Every structure is written in C-alpha cells, then in structure tokens.
C-alpha cells in the first residue's frame, strides 16, 4: 500500500493550512457550486473574466485537505491566464489524475508545466481521493461554462 507521505506532501499541507485566494467575489463574478457526495466536501468557485482573461478567482466552502489544497493550488495556477490556457491546465491536471473526458477530444498538452500541482500526483495512488482533488477544478469549469455558454 502506498504510504501517506506520497499523499500528504508538505506543499499540499501548506496550501491546506494557508489556502491562497480563499474568499468570495461579488457580481459580475460568475460562480459555480460543487460537492463530493462521498465525503461531504462542498466548494464554491468564483471567477472574473475580462477580455478573455481570468483576472481573479476565489474559492469558498469546506472540505478535506486534498480538496482544499488542490483548489488553492488551482487558483494560483489559473489566475491571470486566458480562458483557453486555463482549460489547457485543467485538461492537463485531470490527465495527471488519470481521468479522461470522453466528450472532450482536444489533445492534452503534456509539455505543460504544472509546477506546484505536481505534488498532487500522489493522489492517483489513492483512487478514492481523486474526486477530492478534482472537485475545485470541475467546479471552475462549470463557472467558466456559465459565462461562455450562458
């Protein structure tokens, strides 16, 4: 069995104890809600898009260390990026989580550097936690979709 040091790397615990971009954004920010029915995690992701750039992103809610730290790292990874790049990062991250979206045939850019997010790679050794790691990301996509496809 994989050891917990594979899962709870220092940077993950750091983001859990000191989450970045935690909070809310007022309208015209869009938001979406996500939850993990298995463990009761709930998340709300707020996002502001100006001229096709995600200028600000926040998250709120309660959840386990994996869901919260992943959401925190997500916000730092996508803030300031154009929407197309944000979606690239999301695809890349979900690919790392060994998830494939059958409806999205766009190829994954494996050269894309995920930086701190690489720390979450250990999650795949604990398949039950994959949904925790991707919760914020799926919710971010929902929030973006609500703007671009009203």
């Amino acid at each position, binding site marked *: 069995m994989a050891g917990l040091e594979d899962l709870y790397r220092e940077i993950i*615990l750091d983001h859990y104890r000191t989450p970045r971009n935690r909070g809310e954004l007022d309208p015209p920010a869009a938001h979406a809600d996500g939850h993990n029915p298995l*463990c*009761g995690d709930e998340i709300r992701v707020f996002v502001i898009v100006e001229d096709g750039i995600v200028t600000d992103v926040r998250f709120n809610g309660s*959840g*386990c260390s*994996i869901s919260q730290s992943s959401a925190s790292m997500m916000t730092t990874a996508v803030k300031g990026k154009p929407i197309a790049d944000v979606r690239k990062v999301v695809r890349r991250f979900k690919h790392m989580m060994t998830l494939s979206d059958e409806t999205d045939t766009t190829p994954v850019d494996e050269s894309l550097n995920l930086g701190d997010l690489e720390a979450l790679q250990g999650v795949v050794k604990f398949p039950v936690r994959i949904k*925790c790691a991707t919760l914020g990301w799926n919710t971010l996509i929902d929030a973006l979709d609500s703007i671009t496809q009203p």
Partner: protein
Amino acid sequence: MSIDVTTIRKDFPVLQRQINGKPLVYLDSANTSQKPNAVIEAMAAFMRTGYAPINRSSYQLAAEADTLYEGARQLVAKFINAPKASEIIFTKNATEALNLVIMSWGRANLRRGDVVLLTHMEHHANIVPWHMLVAERGIELRWVPLTADGQLDMSDLDTLLQDTKVFSFTAMSNVLGAISPVATLCAAAHKAGAIAIIDACQSVPHQATDVQAWGADFVAFSSHKMCGPSGLGMLWGREKLLEAMPPFLGGGNMISDVRLDGFTTACLPAKFEAGTPPIAEVVGLGAAVEYLQKIGMNNVRQHEIDLSSYVLNLLNSRFGDDITIHGPTNTEHRGATFSFAFRGIHPHDLSQVLDQQNVCVRAGHHCAKPLMRIIGANATVRASFYLYSTQSDADALADALDSASDIF
C-alpha cells in the same frame, strides 16, 4: 461474558485477513456487516447443488428450493416475532422496503395536506420517499427534534402527533447510535390515530426484536446488516394493512390472473414480490438468522453494551476535549455506533490515516444530511462495532487516531 467473541471471530473468515502484515480492524458494521462461514457455505452449497427457481416449477429441485426459501421466511418471522410468515416481504434492500410501504400505503391513504411525522435523525431512505410524496400529492412533513445528547426530544410529542396520519422513525440512529423507545412511540402514534412505520435497520441486527411487543404497523430492515448477504431487504407489515395496499412493483409472481384488459394480484406475500427474487440471498439470510439465534440476541446486545462502555471510556479519557463523540453517553440508550469529531481533522483525512493502520471506518454524511446540519458538521467519522468486534479493535482505533497528529 455475554458472548465468546474469540470463537465467534473464527466464524468470520475475512477477519483473519492481514493487509501489509497488519490485522484488519473492521469498524463499519453499521454500513454493512461481515459474513460468517455458515452463511457463505449455505449460499455456496445451494448454488452448487440445489439452485432452482422458486414458486414456478414443479420438479424436485424446485420443490427443495421452495422449502429453503419459505423456510427462511419462517425463520425471519420467528426472529422478529411476527404473527405470520406471510407478513414478511422480501425486497432488494431496506430502502426498497421503505419505498414500498411509503409509496404503496402512502398513495392509497394520504391526500393533500395530510401530515406525516418524521424525526431529525432519519436516514435518507426514510426522508426522500416522503419528499417525493410531498411533491406528488402535497402531504406535509413534521419533524421530532433532538435533545442535546442526541436522543428524540419527546417533550412536545403529543402536539407534533396531532392530526398526523403516519409517525415514521428509526429504532436506532445509524449516526448517533441513539435507541428510540419504540413501543412508547408506537402507542403514542396509535393514540393520535396514526400508523407507525419503523426503520429498524440498525436495531434488528443488534438486539432482540419483537414487532408485536413494539405495537408497530410496519418494520423495515436489511439482510446485509445482520450477517446475511447484500441484495436483500425485508418489510414486515400487519396483515390487514398489507392486504388493503395496492401492489408496488408489477410483473410475474405477484399476480393471480393477467388478461389483455387487466390483472388481479396474488395474495400475501407474493403480492409484493414481483419478479425473480434474490433466491440464494434468501437462503443465506436463513442461515444468518439461525447463526444469530444460536448466539442469542440478548447476548449480542450485552456484548455491545460492554463494548460501548469500553469505547466511550477509552476515547474520552485518552483524548478528552480533543474528541467529541455524538449521541447518548448512557450505554443503555445507545448502540455501539460512534460518530465523532477529532482534533479538527477533516473526516476524510482522518479515515485515510486510519486506513493506513487497517482501521476501517466510514467518513461522510452517512446518508443523514439533515442530521449532519443539526449537529453542525458536513461530515463525521463513524466507527461501528458488532458481535465480532473486540476491545482490541477499540484500542487499535485509539492508536490510529493518535497517529493522525503526525501529519495534521
């Protein structure tokens, strides 16, 4: 000693399993129970040499299967002191059993504005179907609140029961372990002119059950929580009430006649057993009932009272304010199911750490989200003990909890 737990554990092969050289500490019996050899062998033997359809065919093999199947029904009836075996309906699980009585009795007897009384500690299976009836025909729901130590607050019960048609409640909470005073509550319901529907999933496996002494009208429980196989649930109901109810699922076995222009139903219990039932599972349940009868349900209860005392004492003295155990503190008022918060660590992270020590618990909302909100948590960790659980299991739980502080 109430039961010889060392000998009993030998009956459960999975408990001999080691993962990474460490023994298995299974503390999720409130979710589903482990199976003794008697049940495994009964099902295997049946499938190996006796498997046949029931109620349909007239050859020797089928007749034998009928005898085993209906024999299991008799055993279940005796186990809960039901007046007649024909009042026992086999379903695919207790959730289906509750849906059966809620939809079938409910649709025939409840109209817009009729009131159904539930409690804040119900499992989703005894909440969601009622919500569906609210949407379908405008019934109203009322709720019995809880006391500070997680028992039903009976102080306003008579007022809450006024003009209700149904009082439906759990005999034992799957989150808090709280035991309801079922006989008292059934009597109160009847006095108010309501029927009583009991969710007995957590109580039937853990203490002696007497549905006649309870004075209940319907009782739902499940095979897989009482050492029987999954895929099988049971509904007991008063004969007069069941006979007056329309069928739930339609198909084969539950009919007397089918014509191009209609059908007539079979008599009980077939009326509510449409299609091919879980035959091997019922045979397995029969073996489970015999296994538990031999041990004695009063002995099982005593074992769990003793274990509960040990667990509460151990966890509270070792962790003090670091742990908050929900539910009653008096072991006479609770089963051996403990939901708790620990050192502010998220339940999912906690259960991950416990898993490293092979301690198997449930983390989540336990299919009781309204109750979670009331106790102020999104989720809790729940450790639940059964007849094969030991004080060593409790010790292992405590040690594993302590190790969580290495990370969090």
